[in-house]
């Protein structure tokens, strides 16, 4: 039995996560093992330093988040990581993790599936970060991709079928996060017959769909590339964590700030764009009925930007924002740049005053929502 990254006894429904980060690929160039013949047919897939760190960041965030804030409290995290030779200790010196070979992933998947099935009100979380390719479905590569010369894809699994298969398993709430590329390469299209990798699970024509609430996100659309700065958490993973932390939050009928599956799907693209500095659209899965995944203990942070129209007014304005039931924050002296501040979400009185009376003072009340809100104050010159 492999040691779990996190385990807790939870009576009743609980959350079970399987987190996989593949950075070291033994049979790809510079992977330390026997290199496959003609790796260029797959576009020279290299060793990756980001996926292990991304997976670790995601697992750590799950572990450190308050268990009772989840729809079901966190009960287990199985973390499988293959580090890249250039970054052998992503968890710090001496901290090792079970490998992310296809056997290890398959074993972990089966065990996770069993844990998930203990209660239909559990929450299942599957996360994968590493190399991906596109056939008629997305293929995700385990660390021993290319181990068998006869079929390199025995070290990979087909994602879309796996996802379709798991839909027919408990629990009712299922989250799949896939941070990998979806490029088409000759090594996938050339072999006759096409289908090159087996899924971890298979859909069945006679089995009932058990999933009611789905959140499936793939960090890249077909032909697109998922990316990261080396030895950093990937853009997608960073955005996902921000979404869960409150970037995708809204209030419910009890005025609690909650993170719902549909809001994550709707907010993720702008959060990824904020991380990467350019648009990198994601793909969203079947998305049945939404559900609350995480409840915050208070309003989330919002990046608020205040500006004026006409533009010259900004350089003369004393800008302010004033939360409900709290004191006013003022920017003095006036500056020609927009005012960017991080505030807690909620109602604010925002406005601009002009000491030199060159423009009319303005103010209004706004609901400031996460993750970012830009407000423009229109004024009139005197």
């Amino acid at each position, binding site marked *: 039995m492999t040691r779990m990254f996190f385990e807790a006894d939870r009576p009743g429904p609980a959350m079970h996560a399987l987190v996989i980060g593949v950075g070291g690929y033994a049979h790809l*160039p*510079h992977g330390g093992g026997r290199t496959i*013949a*003609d*790796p*260029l*047919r*797959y*576009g*020279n*897939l*290299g060793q*990756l*330093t*980001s*996926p292990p760190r991304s997976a670790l960041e995601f697992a750590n965030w799950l572990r450190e988040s308050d268990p009772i804030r989840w729809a079901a409290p966190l009960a287990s995290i199985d973390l499988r990581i293959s580090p890249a030779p*250039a970054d052998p200790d992503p968890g710090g010196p001496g901290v090792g993790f079970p490998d992310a070979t296809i056997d290890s992933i398959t074993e972990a998947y089966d065990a996770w599936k069993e844990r998930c099935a203990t209660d239909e009100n559990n929450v299942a979380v599957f996360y994968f*970060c*590493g*190399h*991906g*390719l596109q056939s008629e479905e997305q293929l995700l590569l385990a660390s021993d991709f290319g181990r068998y010369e006869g079929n390199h894809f025995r070290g990979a699994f087909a994602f879309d079928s796996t996802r379709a298969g798991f839909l027919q398993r408990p629990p009712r709430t299922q989250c799949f996060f896939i*941070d*990998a*590329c*979806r*490029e088409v*390469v*000759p090594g996938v299209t050339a072999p006759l017959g096409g289908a090159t990798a087996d899924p971890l699970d298979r859909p069945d024509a006679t089995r009932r769909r058990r999933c009611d609430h789905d959140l499936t996100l793939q*960090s*890249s659309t077909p032909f697109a*590339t*998922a*990316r*990261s*700065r*080396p030895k950093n958490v*990937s853009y997608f993973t960073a955005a996902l964590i921000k979404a869960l932390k409150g970037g995708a939050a809204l209030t419910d009928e009890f005025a609690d700030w909650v993170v719902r599956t549909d809001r994550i799907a709707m907010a993720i693209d702008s959060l990824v764009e904020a991380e990467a500095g350019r648009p990198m659209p994601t793909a969203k899965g079947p998305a049945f009925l939404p559900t609350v995944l995480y409840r915050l203990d208070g309003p989330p942070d919002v990046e608020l930007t205040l500006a004026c129209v006409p533009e010259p007014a900004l350089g003369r304005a004393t800008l302010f924002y004033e939360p409900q039931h709290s004191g006013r924050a003022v920017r003095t002296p006036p500056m020609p740049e927009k005012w960017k501040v991080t505030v807690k979400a909620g109602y604010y009185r925002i406005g601009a005053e002009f000491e030199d009376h060159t423009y009319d003072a303005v103010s209004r009340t706004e609901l400031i929502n996460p993750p970012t809100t830009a407000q423009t104050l229109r004024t009139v010159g005197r």
Partner: protein
Amino acid sequence: MPIVFVHGVATRRDPGYAKSEAARAALMRGFLVPATGQVPFFAPYWGGQAAAFAWEHASLPQGDEEVFGPGEETPAILLGEVWESEPPPDDRVVLQVARNSFADGIDLLFGTAAEDVDPEEADGFARLAVRAAKLTRPAWLDTARDDVEVINRLAEDLSESADEEEAFGPDRALLHVYEGLSRIRGAAGRMTGRLAVKALRPSLNRSASMFLGDILVYLRQRERLRADGPIATTIATDLRRACEACTADDPQVIVIAHSMGGNIVYDLLSGLRPDLSCDVLVTVGSQVGVFAELGLFDAVRAPANPATDRIPKPPGVDRWINVFDLNDILGFATERIFDGVRDFRYSTGKGAFAAHSTYFIRPSFYDRLATRLREAS
């Protein structure tokens, strides 16, 4: 450093034009302005104002049916230039070419791949080509068994640690080189003996007829309209825009003109538009020397003593480099006619096939050009 590229004869905006334009622009930027971000780049297109063929080339001798598959003509021409005898076995084409000359092998691979690079991938491809052109002949070349091994070893030598970003998937630029290999293989397989020459004949004929046509159209426009001719205006407009794009930090304008483009730029700078200027003029595979000898330029007067009399370079040109390939039957020397120009020979290899049209798809050409430009400054 704004760059102006003036294309030569027989350039038409066909479906491949956008791709080749993007690849050429990216290669020029990649090799000539290393480590610079965006460089203003101008490529005046004058092919649309040049010769039109009323019978759509009915005057060309009818060759056999097209022998090469899609995208195979470029590798066939490149291969034809460096390989005289029977082509090598089709799984060892690049290997054999590279063993003779490593630079030829790189040119064959990247010249073929460049044809298929999408505009959005051009910069990544150019960066890879720059690194490839800098490689010296590797020792593994003597033991490599076939082309697949060659490009995999090459990919390994070219792989660099990702500084900025790593991708969770394939390297698109290398994939193009890989996909080009199948077209090289296809071209070589169909290039047995004399068949090759025969197969490429229609396309060479067509180029020759367009060459004549474009020259005649330009000369007629100049005769009637002087600097206001449509071709002259198109090119002059971009020369002026390039000058306007200069900044105090980046004051140099480079004009690279191919073939007939070189003759036109010379004509503009020496006589029709003396108000225009550039810091470096590079004429490639041009006929400026021949045009001068034939008295086709206003600025050129017949010499009293051909052994010693030289024509000064145009006043608006600071430095002038003329590059030609000895195998290019349409590229000519200039040094013994003009003052202030330097001729450089660039050799593609043994054959004498179609060197004229392949300068700008070869990484080795850009690499040498970059060296010459550095020397010139």
